[in-house]
């Protein structure tokens, strides 16, 4: 099991419990608002915070939240609100890139296991079992040990640790689709294996990946910021949420806002991703 598989199981339960489209719950509305805010902040940070995220102002150091500095300022007088907004781009980029890496690797492994017969399936399953013995961040830490810390190694490391979870879900989905009646019918109609895979099996396997991807982006952002927090990802003074939280650790007693607000955004992002993933799952039409 991986965190992703747990998440996927949970959101599937959501669908079974409440069939049909249903109305938008307040929780979901809030998640959409958070997601929109993140997208705007990621694409056009200047719109929400015109200041410079790295601009220092020693006179304003350690300022508590005020009208001029909504989230307060840090040890060099940098505006935390500006940094949080500008950090959204970095975090979203890391989240999407890591998910793409994990999903891509998982897709290759899962498809190979599900399509190429029992021997390959057995081998891939053993490989996944071995990878699952590096729980959570362990695989990422091993990767960073080899390639050194940094934003991009952290991103690849997070994607790599998520890949086994994706692979196992995709494999299961693929096998379920292969056994379904419409694929059997297509086989009887004389479709070539290639047509079967491209026209029937893959599209039906890929649809659930939207849910997985949404859940995965939230998780990847949290993991990447954890690595930055530990000093293995983005390095200060970069405006990255995990690195900002880590920088605020030293001033916890005197300037709680330095840690609190970057952390709050991470939590909001993670919750929004979970709620959105489940909302998509609940409304999905696929089998």
């Amino acid at each position: 099991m991986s965190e992703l598989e747990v998440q996927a199981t949970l959101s599937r339960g959501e669908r079974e419990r409440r069939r049909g489209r249903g109305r938008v719950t307040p929780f979901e509305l809030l998640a959409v608002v958070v997601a929109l805010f993140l997208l705007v902040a990621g694409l056009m940070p200047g719109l929400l915070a015109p200041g410079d995220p790295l601009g220092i102002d020693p006179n304003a150091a350690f300022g508590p939240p005020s009208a001029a500095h909504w989230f307060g300022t840090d040890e060099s007088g940098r505006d935390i609100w500006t940094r949080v907004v500008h950090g959204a781009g970095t975090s979203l980029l890391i989240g999407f890139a890591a998910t793409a890496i994990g999903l891509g690797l998982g897709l290759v492994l899962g498809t190979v296991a599900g399509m190429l017969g029992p021997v390959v399936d057995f081998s891939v399953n053993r490989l996944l079992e071995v990878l699952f013995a590096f729980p959570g961040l362990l695989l990422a830490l091993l990767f960073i040990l080899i390639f050194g810390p940094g934003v991009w190694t952290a991103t690849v490391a997070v994607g790599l640790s998520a890949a086994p979870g994706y692979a196992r879900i995709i494999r299961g989905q693929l096998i379920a689709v292969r056994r379904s009646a419409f694929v059997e019918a297509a086989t009887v109609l004389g479709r070539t294996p290639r047509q079967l895979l491209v026209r029937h099996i893959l599209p039906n396997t890929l649809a659930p990946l939207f849910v997985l991807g949404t859940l995965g982006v939230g998780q990847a952002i949290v993991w990447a910021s954890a690595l930055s927090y530990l000093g293995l990802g983005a390095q200060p003074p970069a405006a990255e949420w995990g690195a900002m939280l880590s920088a605020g650790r030293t001033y916890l007693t005197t300037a709680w806002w330095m840690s609190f607000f970057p952390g709050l955004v991470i939590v909001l992002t993670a919750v929004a991703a979970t709620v959105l993933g489940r909302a998509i799952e609940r409304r999905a039409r696929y089998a």
Partner: protein
Amino acid sequence: MRTRTSSTPAIVGSPARRDRVRRVLRHPVLVHSAGGVFVLWAVATLTFFAVRLIPGDPAQAVLGGPGSQASPEALAAVRAEYGFDQPLFVQYLRELGRLATGDLGRSYALNMDVAPLLLAQLGGTLTLALLSLAVAWLLALALATWSTQGGRAARAFGSGLEITAAALPHFWLATALIIVFSTGLGLLPPISVPGPVGLILPVLTLAVPLAGFLGQIMRESFEAALESPFVLSARARGEGELGIRFVHVLRHAALPAVNLSGWAFGSLISGAVVVETIFARPGLGRTLLNAVTVRDVPVVIGVVLIVALAYIVMTLATDLAGAALDPRGKRA
């Protein structure tokens, strides 16, 4: 995942004896242990070859990295001592031989043997992880019992609470707990002091997000079990709602959560890296992080192997516990 041997080796002897031997060979504990040994070997092999990808001379790393300007003689001595001058395959076999005898090698940075170093750290991390697992179970159980008794509002509240708890990153929760309970109220120490008081905040940090995950799973199976015929008949007999939950429903509801505990344990160990660092608590996680930061390869490999071993044992334990709770899966 359950591995099953499809072919049994040829066994000589009377049919009855053969039957007995076959039953022993197919015993879940044995099958799982064989699978576990395979995974351990694969983990050791994977890490051995993966760390060879580290750019630079390993002898240089032993002597403190490229900045240390070690003399060629010292480098040659280290190469001979650690066997870096041997062919890769010989190094690999030697490493496997060492690992099989429980020798994890020598730390580059700390100048001491890895096995005793990690053994000293193991207890703290295991205490933290197992205690957190227990607290998470209790929290999840309390929430599931409570929220399935109330109406729709209680359910929605419980579900929202669980989703939020599950999404809390350890490093933020730890920071928030320190802000509230240490700097704010002054009740608990911000760093982990020896003894039970120092364990409260670290355990809460690890337990709350996990309780969010377990709680969702439990509530789901609670609700399914509450609609089953045996609950209806228990109600018809006049048993109380709380009694029904603890006597009849719990066994069914706990099953999926028990099956998840292997995963949960793994995620707790990985969470321990963060928590031990924040609360300055000695343990495997903090040792691992330090070793990754200074590229102390033998220590990292040692931690990875120990975690893999703990994970395998925990998975075996949850599989057996699941089988004991649910006799339906037992083969005649």
